């Protein structure tokens, strides 16, 4: 089923890293704090020019026909760089929603999302931040061939910067429905997050009407598509966490090799060195778990692999970020240092699209259910 990617990751990665070094420096990351949309237009324009927004979109919709693994290379670099902006939201999640949705909505929006001329987002989560029908708080009442939407979607990524929103709702019978809504007709309110590198918002629907041609999926199709978005969202939160953890380890190792105390670099002390070794073990184990999940998800559904990777990466990155602050000492605890940004980003990755405990419980249900049937 899987198509071998034509993109060489060992070539793509340094290109992305180089672009981000120029256009997403720590100073740029901090300048974006004050931008309520957090859109960071120059970086977005560069990504569009380089064709990154179309990497994962099929060629007949104007994309490069790449894989989730190709997108993950970019996404991990964005995590490393603490990058603001809607790349994963639009080019991964919304593109996935459109690609898996009905023909009319797909042909209308996907080419624009691939070209980057439109930024799209997904409003698929409710109060607890999971993408699941039992968490969704938007109700879709059938109205002609389309629906009328009432309710609130929460934790919507890049809600303010998006021109189109893929909304998950439930119909009066409790079935999920996915529709594409022009953001002009809805009210997006930014939510101030502790992680200043990202933008989440609340999107309220107050009787918004959507036509039948804007329906992405309903019934069983919607169940499948929502599950797919939940797993792609979880997997890419894990990818972001991997990037964060990698970078924290690099910065910490460099610092430990330079910072002198007792006339020695602190990294020559075993207490510090061994903690760095543990950070590396966390990073490398995260890498194999995340790569495996992304690979399997590219071939089809992979809930067990995604839950493994999400629980693992979320906890590992939070641990690594905490160790990074500890080993930097007082300077790592200051606002001017980047360590707290990595920690906040890692902590948000840990909870987005289901926290570690939720994923472990799901994993248990996936793998142990047959074993507790009465014998």
């Amino acid at each position, binding site marked *: 089923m899987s198509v071998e990617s034509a993109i060489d990751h060992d070539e793509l990665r340094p290109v992305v890293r180089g672009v981000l070094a120029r256009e997403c420096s720590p100073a740029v990351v901090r300048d974006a704090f004050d931008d309520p949309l957090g859109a960071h237009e120059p970086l977005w324009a560069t990504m569009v020019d380089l064709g990154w927004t179309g990497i994962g979109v099929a060629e007949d919709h104007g994309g490069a026909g790449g894989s989730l693994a190709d997108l993950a290379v970019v996404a991990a670099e964005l995590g490393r760089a603490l990058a603001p902006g809607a790349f994963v939201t639009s080019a991964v999640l919304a593109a996935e929603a459109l690609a898996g949705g009905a023909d009319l909505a797909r042909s209308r929006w996907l080419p624009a999302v691939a070209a980057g001329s439109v930024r799209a987002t997904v409003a698929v989560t409710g109060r607890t931040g999971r993408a699941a029908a039992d968490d969704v708080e938007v109700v879709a009442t059938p109205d002609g061939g389309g629906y009328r939407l009432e309710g609130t979607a929460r934790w919507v990524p890049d809600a303010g910067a998006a021109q189109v929103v893929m909304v998950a709702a439930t119909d009066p019978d409790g079935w999920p429905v996915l529709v594409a809504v022009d953001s002009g007709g809805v009210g997006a309110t930014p939510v101030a997050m502790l992680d200043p590198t990202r933008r989440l918002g609340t999107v309220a629907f107050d009787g918004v009407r959507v036509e039948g041609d804007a329906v992405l999926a309903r019934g069983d199709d919607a169940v499948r598509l929502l599950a797919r978005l939940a797993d792609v969202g979880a997997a890419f939160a894990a990818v972001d966490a991997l990037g964060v953890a990698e970078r924290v*380890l690099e910065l910490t*190792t460099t610092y*430990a*090799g330079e910072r002198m105390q007792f006339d*020695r*670099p602190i*990294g*020559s*002390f*075993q207490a*510090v*060195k*061994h903690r*760095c*070794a*543990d950070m*590396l*073990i966390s990073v*490398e*184990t995260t890498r*194999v*778990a995340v*790569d*495996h999940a992304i690979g399997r998800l590219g071939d089809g559904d992979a809930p*067990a*692999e995604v*839950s*493994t990777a999400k*629980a*693992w990466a979320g906890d590992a990155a939070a641990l690594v970020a905490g160790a990074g602050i500890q080993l930097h000492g007082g300077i790592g605890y200051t606002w001017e240092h980047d360590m707290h940004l990595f920690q906040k980003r890692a902590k948000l990755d840990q909870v987005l699209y289901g926290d570690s*405990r939720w994923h*472990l*419980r799901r*994993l*248990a*249900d996936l*793998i*142990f259910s*047959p*074993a*507790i049937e009465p014998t």
Partner: protein
Amino acid sequence: MIDDHVVGLDDFRHQVRSWCEEHVPSDWKSSQHSAPGHEVVAFQRWWFQELRAAGYAPAHWPEEWGGPGLDLPHQVVVHEEFSRASAPHLGAFLISLHHTPATLEVGGTDEQRRRHLPAILDGQLWCQGFSEPNAGSDLASLRTRAVRDGDTYVVNGQKVWSSGAHYSDRCLLLARTDPDVPKRKGISYFLLDLHTDGVEVRPIRQATGQAEFCELFLTDVGIPVADRVGEEGEGWRIAQATLSAERGPAVLDLAEEMRSALVSLIDLAGRVSLPGQSEPALADPAVRERLAGFHSEVEVLRLLCSRTLENLLRRGGAGPESSIMKVYYSELLQRLTEFGAELAGIDAHLDGRKPIFSGWTSGRWLIDHIGSWEWTIAAGTNEIQRTVIGERVLGLPREPQP
């Protein structure tokens, strides 16, 4: 329940699976359980020949060594299927199949390879004589002396932690040939025939109750110059190849063994109840969450193992990142066996033994847990490994030398 990681070798997998169905003795665990050590060794020798005849062992040996010449995905399938079939372990052959060929590959002559590799295929057992009472983590300070006298070295000293020496024919031996140069430079490498006069082997009983390790006392032992590996003074370098062997293809077996252990653990959780509960432990949310956590960790171990081996094949020779494998494996083993003992409850404390060379996950959970320290201590303690990772992988500054 637990996925195979290699896809697309279905025909080969079916072939291995049906071979296992036909050949794995159904009663081997019970028949081996209380067998004395020499019977265990004889059984494993027989099983090794069965595997050889079928072309599955030594799975990682290339054709030029007389092995089946399987590529890595085929090796993974072999180990996955052996694990699925709960096939007997080849614990007695660890050094013979991994350390000895890795050593001879790096430091041996064609003549040495021609002499020893076929003997191993015929069932010869090897052990390792590296550590000494005063040279454990600081291996380079070893004091066993080898003094050349014509075509022979005369060796005196004491070795310790030689696993399986009491059943072995030969020993990978490090001894000091030059005491006047810096300690790593004065070490040479020998292939000692354990049947030589002056070699005394004394088993050591371990915390698990088994006697798998031995002390070696060497008194005026003669070793022919032809049994030296490499030049004089090259012993330390060649020993690195020996040590990296256990972080090479040997880990495939360990990773798949851990997968079997997880299956046993889940099975246990389905059979036992927690104190004061009537439902199986597997219905308890906290137990389920911990088991799911172990499932993740075992999956990560298997993936890490494959990644390490891919890198090894690409570059030739295990890099220091194989230390990551060792630390991760051994600490997971410790936690997983501890949870097994916890689930088994007070029954796990009933006196019991496991046969020697039976691996580290026999399903006697408390014994396995106690035995797991063998992995966190042996082959360079995890503290040493973390220093190796810090210095050689991350490039952190070395500890100042006194």
